[in-house]
């Protein structure tokens, strides 16, 4: 406890001491509760100030782009990112609202959205806002060891300003809108005119950012389909050995008419002897 308190004090001193603090926060794995305190202070500051905010230190091993950026998996996410950038950013257009979904639960939507967002935010050119639109099982904060009470549902229900709902993560230029408090009627909420307006607003308020929406699965819930129609692009996650081919087919058909950018094939069983990956391992600086 004492170590954490010391870290807290040091962080406070740094902030008061002029805001020109070095980017890497030395605090070793602060507990969730303390972290909440740290982030609560952020909204008062202008959002594009990630260098000032202490970075989130999530030790979740699945956030490979954060914790193990030299792993082949992180490299795969980077590949996904570059493909996506190529598809969405052109000379005269920028499709900045992207939704991540899947056919059935537990296919790795949140992880894909997070890893993709982190990967994008780690680049110098991109600012990313990750929106946790899965009001049924919000899990983005869980991965990042955060616990912010206010979020998307509050914006929709109480008219909270979007700017107030945004939380900077300290990971590159990545900020986050959490899901907010639990609601009983997410379908009605998402199909409302208000939601449409909100997305329009976000699109114009942050025209230079990627807006990545983490959503519930398509087959069991209705809201994702209506949300998909508001998006510039949909990323569809398929996890190996989870959804049946029929499910995937059905979900893809449900997304007809939307801009389906492509599939992300998740959790693939790979041949251990595959040379591509051993190549990466051998040459990664962390391998030693």
């Amino acid at each position: 406890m004492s170590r954490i308190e010391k870290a807290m004090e040091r962080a406070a001193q740094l902030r008061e001491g002029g805001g020109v603090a070095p980017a890497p926060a030395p605090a070793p794995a602060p507990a969730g509760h303390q972290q909440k305190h740290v982030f609560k202070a952020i909204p008062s500051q202008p959002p594009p100030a990630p260098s000032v905010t202490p970075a989130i230190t999530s030790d979740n091993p699945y956030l490979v782009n954060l914790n193990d950026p030299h792993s082949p998996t992180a490299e795969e996410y980077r590949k996904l990112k570059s493909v996506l950038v190529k598809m969405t950013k052109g000379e005269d257009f920028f499709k900045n609202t992207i939704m991540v979904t899947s056919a059935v639960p537990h296919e790795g939507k949140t992880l894909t959205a997070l890893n993709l967002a982190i990967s994008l935010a780690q680049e110098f050119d991109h600012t990313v806002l990750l929106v946790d639109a899965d009001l049924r099982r919000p899990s983005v904060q869980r991965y990042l060891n955060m616990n912010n009470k206010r979020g998307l549902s509050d914006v929709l229900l109480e008219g909270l300003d979007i700017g107030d709902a945004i939380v900077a993560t300290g990971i590159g230029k990545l900020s986050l809108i959490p899901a907010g408090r639990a609601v009983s009627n997410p379908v009605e909420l998402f199909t409302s005119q208000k939601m449409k307006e909100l997305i329009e607003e976000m699109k114009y308020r942050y025209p230079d950012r990627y807006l990545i929406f983490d959503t519930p699965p398509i087959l069991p819930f209705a809201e994702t389909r209506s949300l998909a129609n508001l998006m510039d692009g949909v990323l569809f996650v398929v996890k190996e050995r989870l959804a049946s081919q029929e499910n995937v087919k059905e979900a893809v058909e449900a997304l007809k008419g939307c801009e389906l950018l492509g599939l992300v094939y998740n959790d693939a069983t790979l041949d251990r002897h595959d040379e591509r990956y051993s190549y990466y391992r051998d040459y990664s600086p962390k391998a030693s």
Partner: protein
Amino acid sequence: MQSSELDYKKFLQILNRRKELFVVLALLIMTAVTIVSFVLPKKFEAKSTVFIEKNVISELVKGLTVTPSMEDTIKVLTYAITSRTLLAKVADSTDMNLAAKSGADSEELVKRIQKNIDVQVKDKNLFIISYKDSNPKIAQDFVNTLVRLYIEENTSSKRGESYDATKFLSEQISTFKAKLDKAQDEVNAYKRDKGTAISIDEGKLYQDINASQQKLIDLELRRRQLEGMRHVTKTTSDPLRSKLLALQKQLHELQAQYTDSYPEVLTVKGEIESIKEQMKAAGGGQTFDSNELAKVDSEIAAIRASEDGLRRNIASNQALLRNIPAARAELDKLELERNNQKNIYDQLFARHGQSEVSKQMEVQDKSTTFRIVDPATLPTAPISPNRLAIMMMGIIGGLAGSFGILLLLEQMDTSVKDARSVKGFGVPILAIIPHMLDPQEVALQHKRAKRLFTLGGVYFLFLLCFPVMELLGLNYVDTMMSYISPASIVQDVKGHLR
């Protein structure tokens, strides 16, 4: 080659992915098989060895007697021992058919018994007859009774056969004896009737005939001669007498005309006198001639008589000669018949002697005999189920069956298993994210797997105890099971209910 390698890798992957399930399933199957191996009804086998012995006597009297050949006995034995009648008899005497009420039931019983009997031939004269039953005592009794009854039946049937053969032969002998006698009688009668024709020598008869003919010719010649001689005698006497007669006639005529003193009468008288004189002179000769003639005549008559006799003799001899071949043929026929009958009779008689000996041999049990080398003893250990084999098969089957179930599950799993399979949806695959490992979770899983495998290993060792016990012949489980047999449980339950 590549595809097989791929397959093997695929199998390994499946196994690796669901190793826990594999272990649990395999152990479950092994447990089930082990339980089944103990629950399966036990079968006991009783065996009896029978030796078919060829007696020394039968070698000694070989050819003298007729004994059923060993090969035949052996050939028939397997069928005979499983014959319905014999089995029914055995079932009768071992009280096995007490439960059978109707004919169909006993039919069932016989069929079941036939299924459980096994007859094996060893070294051509050694038989092993075995019977399986759930009750060792019944198995033993059954085999012993079966063997005993079979041997009894076999001996008595052989004996009966011998008796029958002897009887038949003696019957045949008496009928053939009668036939033979009749034929002999016929031959004798014929010989009696046609004795002359048969006994006469043909050559002699010819000679006889020839001689008779020669004699006849001789006699004829002689007769002719005599006749000629007689003629001569007659003519010499005749001129004088006829002259005399003529003169006497002339005298008579003259005397009627003339007196005695007439010259002519006188001359005639004189002439007559002279002739008479002459005749007197020749008169001696003339008497002699008449004697001679009579003699010749009688001789001729005698010759004629003997000629006739000879002719008759020749004729009868010739008739005889003609009859000889037919008579001979007839005799031959009769004799052949008789000989045939005699032949058969002789043979029958000889056989009868043999059969008599055979019969005595059978009666005294001196021909092939069955010897029970090894009577059935009470089987102690069941031959079936072969628990060791079943358990070993259970272990192998557990592994194989479990793997089969895994394969089946894999087959039934229609989920996306391959990035290639989602290419068909017409949506580009932007990235393939490999399986991520969380070291903590992996460690936890490892721990769990380790625990499961340890438990599984211990349980497997426990399961292995049963085959080992079986191998060592320890039957604790059986003893235990006999304590908790269903019957006793039912009784317990009934007792509690009261």
